[in-house]
């Protein structure tokens, strides 16, 4: 019995930091409508700075002072980020905001390694809370008890701040109607900045308070952000009480899940989240959001099928690409195959994102599942390659069917957070369930059959599949199903009003996209000869997003160009520098801020401008659009 009580208390102690970070994310989202992906990064910097300060400053005041100082310093960094980066993108679609803050996260990951090194850092114990308390023969660290008390205290302080101060009243008002607050004479800019500072302060405090419990390392940002997303989805984005309750719930599920499913404890959290989403899609304490007002005219030029000239040009490009083995060496062919595979991956996400309006932040899950499907079939069942290629992607299809069913219940940022959480869950399973997946060691020795073994044959195979997939998905865009899907994207309510079963259409699109990604993953497994958990990791999901964005979300052909340019750039970059995340993160932020239309979007804009030199570009192209009355 005592053991279970101690386990329960450990869960409560873990909840404290989780609550701090989640409440910060919730507050920022409430007012600015930005889901701050970099929240985990701020949490991590908080821990690193607190580590450095506690090493330098001695005594009890030194320790606690360091914790607070670290949180304040990170809040200051947050203010700079808000003023320099976020102020430029408040009017951008939410996907761009998520991506920009993700780019920031990538940069921070490389920066902390540059500054503090790659090794885990073990911090000092908290003065006055070094010992443990004996509870019927079980030890409870006294620092855990401190954290257990701290959680409700912070909740109380936040409650007072929001209920009893003018600032709190303004923030609550802005959460509901930002423009009206401005129309009453409140400077939104500073309100946003102060809210961001408070939110970041909470995240950094959460990180700083972890140092007596856990080592500080450079991957702690992704671990916390996924848990935090789960917490806010369960608790309801924008609700502080919800963040508290959900943080306790998730931490307890983790604490007891370890006892029930030691290998895959995260399954339990997933199940609870799934139940909550079915019963209350907006979370336990959240409010149902009014259907998001879609930006009218997001697609300025309605899509059209290719003209016969354009078809000929595409075919010519394909033929030229097919001649590569005639003059290129093996390395170039391998790179070419990889690019072709990533074209498949990118067009599958593009289909979901641009045609369906569903921006998945965890699309790599289905790519990776396809790869693991191959590994299971080839290694365990010993099936020949052609059978594996046909059946392997079905694992991606299955994953997309299960997760997609839940994900399409939500939209916008909730959808993005949920898909990310799902992908992370799949990753955890692949990583932790060593007896089946080989864990970090992956599954090795997957070689193509002899007919596809030579680099040129494999290249032709990958290129052919990529062309087929691209044509098939494009044809779908202009099919009745494609029209229905685009209708649900443009207006969910109106499409339902004309009899479209929107959820079903979106779910179908999700499954199609997941299966197609699985095809890419299956080829990838054969190309590399192995499968690793990284094949379904977050960074691969983001690669896909960047490819689509780089090409241009609003264009039909963007994904293909984006994949080719990005993958080639990426392969080159990794060979040139160790700081690829830093460069990549900066690159992502640059695209979002400077070229939000992507490469193809920009070319189309130029072409259009040349076609009709006057009027010089519709105002729609350049400016954020507001809704008409």
């Amino acid at each position: 019995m005592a053991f279970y009580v101690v386990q329960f208390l450990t869960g409560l102690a873990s909840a404290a930091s989780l609550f701090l970070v989640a409440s910060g994310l919730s507050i920022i989202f409430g007012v600015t409508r930005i889901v701050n992906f970099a929240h985990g990064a701020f949490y991590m910097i908080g821990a690193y700075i607190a580590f450095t300060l506690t090493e330098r400053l001695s005594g009890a005041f030194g320790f606690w002072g360091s914790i607070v100082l670290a949180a304040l310093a990170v809040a200051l960094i947050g203010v700079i980020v808000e003023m320099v980066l976020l102020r430029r993108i408040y009017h951008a679609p939410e996907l761009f905001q998520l991506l920009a803050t993700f780019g920031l996260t990538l940069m921070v990951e490389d920066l902390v390694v540059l500054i503090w090194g790659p090794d885990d850092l073990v911090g000092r114990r908290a003065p006055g809370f070094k010992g443990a308390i004996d509870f019927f023969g079980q030890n409870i660290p006294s620092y855990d008890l401190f954290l257990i008390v701290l959680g409700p205290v912070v909740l109380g302080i936040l409650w007072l701040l929001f209920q009893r101060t003018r600032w709190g009243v303004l923030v609550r008002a802005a959460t509901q109607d930002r423009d009206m607050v401005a129309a009453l004479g409140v400077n939104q800019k500073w309100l946003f900045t102060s809210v961001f500072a408070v939110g970041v302060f909470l995240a950094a405090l959460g990180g700083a308070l972890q140092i007596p419990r856990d080592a500080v390392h450079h991957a702690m940002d992704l671990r916390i952000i996924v848990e935090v997303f789960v917490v806010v989805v369960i608790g309801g984005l924008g609700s502080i009480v919800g963040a508290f309750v959900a943080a306790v719930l998730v931490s307890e599920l983790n604490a007891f899940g370890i006892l029930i499913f030691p290998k895959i404890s995260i399954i339990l959290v997933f199940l609870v989240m799934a139940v909550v989403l079915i019963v209350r899609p907006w979370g336990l304490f959240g409010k149902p959001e009014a259907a998001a007002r879609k930006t009218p005219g997001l697609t300025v030029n309605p899509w059209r099928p290719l003209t016969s000239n354009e078809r000929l040009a595409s075919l010519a490009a394909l033929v030229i690409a097919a001649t590569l083995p005639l003059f290129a060496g093996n390395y170039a062919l391998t790179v070419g195959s990889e690019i072709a595979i990533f074209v498949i991956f990118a067009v599958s996400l593009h289909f979901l994102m641009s045609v369906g309006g569903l921006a998945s932040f965890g699309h790599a899950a289905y790519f990776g599942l396809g790869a693991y499907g191959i590994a299971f079939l080839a290694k365990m069942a010993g099936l020949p390659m052609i059978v594996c290629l046909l059946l392997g992607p079905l694992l991606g299809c299955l994953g997309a069917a299960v997760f997609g069913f839940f994900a399409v219940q939500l939209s916008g940022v909730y959808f993005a957070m949920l898909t990310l959480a799902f992908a992370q869950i799949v990753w955890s399973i692949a990583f932790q369930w060593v007896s089946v997946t080989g864990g970090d060691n992956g599954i090795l020795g997957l070689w193509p059959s002899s007919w596809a073994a030579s680099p040129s044959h494999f290249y032709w195979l990958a290129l052919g599949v990529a062309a087929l997939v691209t044509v098939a998905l494009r044809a779908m865009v202009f099919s009745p199903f494609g029209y229905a899907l685009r209708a649900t994207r443009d207006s969910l309510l109106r499409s339902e009003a004309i009899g479209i079963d929107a959820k079903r259409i979106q779910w179908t699109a999700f499954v199609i996209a997941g299966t197609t990604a699985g095809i890419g993953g299956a080829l990838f497994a054969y190309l590399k000869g192995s499968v690793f958990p990284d094949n379904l990791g977050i960074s691969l999901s983001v690669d896909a997003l960047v490819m689509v964005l780089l090409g241009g979300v609003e264009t039909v052909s963007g994904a293909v160009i984006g994949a080719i340019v990005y993958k080639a750039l990426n392969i080159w970059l990794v060979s040139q520098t160790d700081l690829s995340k830093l460069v990549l993160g900066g690159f992502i932020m640059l695209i979002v801020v400077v070229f939000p239309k992507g490469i193809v979007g920009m070319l189309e804009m130029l072409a259009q401008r040349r076609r009709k030199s006057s009027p010089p570009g519709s105002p729609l192209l350049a400016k954020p659009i507001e809704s008409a009355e």
Partner: protein
Amino acid sequence: MKLTVQDLNSHYGPAHILFDIGFEVGEGEVLALLGRNGAGKSTTFRSIVGLVAQRSGRIMFEGKDVSAKPTHEIVREGLGYVPEERRIFTDLTVEENLEVGRQPKRPNAPHWTREKLFALFPNLGEMKNRPGGRMSGGEQQMLTIARTLMGNPSLVLLDEPSEGLSPKIVEQMVDAILTMKKEGVSIVVSEQNLHFARLISDRAYIIERGRICFGGTMAELDARPDIRDAHLSL
């Protein structure tokens, strides 16, 4: 002149909504902006306070050009705005709604306190702690006006204050507007209801399809039944 609007043009995306709108408001005057649904009354107000991004023209308030200023700075100059859809903060109590509107005292404008506003709108005083979402339409309309007055404006843009209210509440609204006028607040009120407008206004402009097509005193408007019938549905 309290407020001068010149050559105001506004767009929503590709749609041109307002065409060369111009009018003037005198010190302490109540001006009615009349027109049908969709004529451009609300857009005119939203453009004046800077809530429409794509607008051009000149807006002079108390001799200062405010056309390039952001919304909150225009409002802080003493130009209050009461939106049409009420837009009260439904999660906030009556008192908290008022708190959002509170701005420092202004030398050239009447100073409003909570007590003074509760005297003007007695209903509100009886429900200080009620969330805005649980008030009737008439009470919400009073709250939006009171909230804007908390900013001590010297001029208020009132967007269709009588819309959807019961005759009894409309009467209270007339009294409240006349009290505001007596205190020295200049008012521009947009209306479809000519009867209501006549009770409070000194002068009227008629707006139709984004253009001003009449301007004059209420007596002059009454002398032109042709214009009245052509542009106002009664």
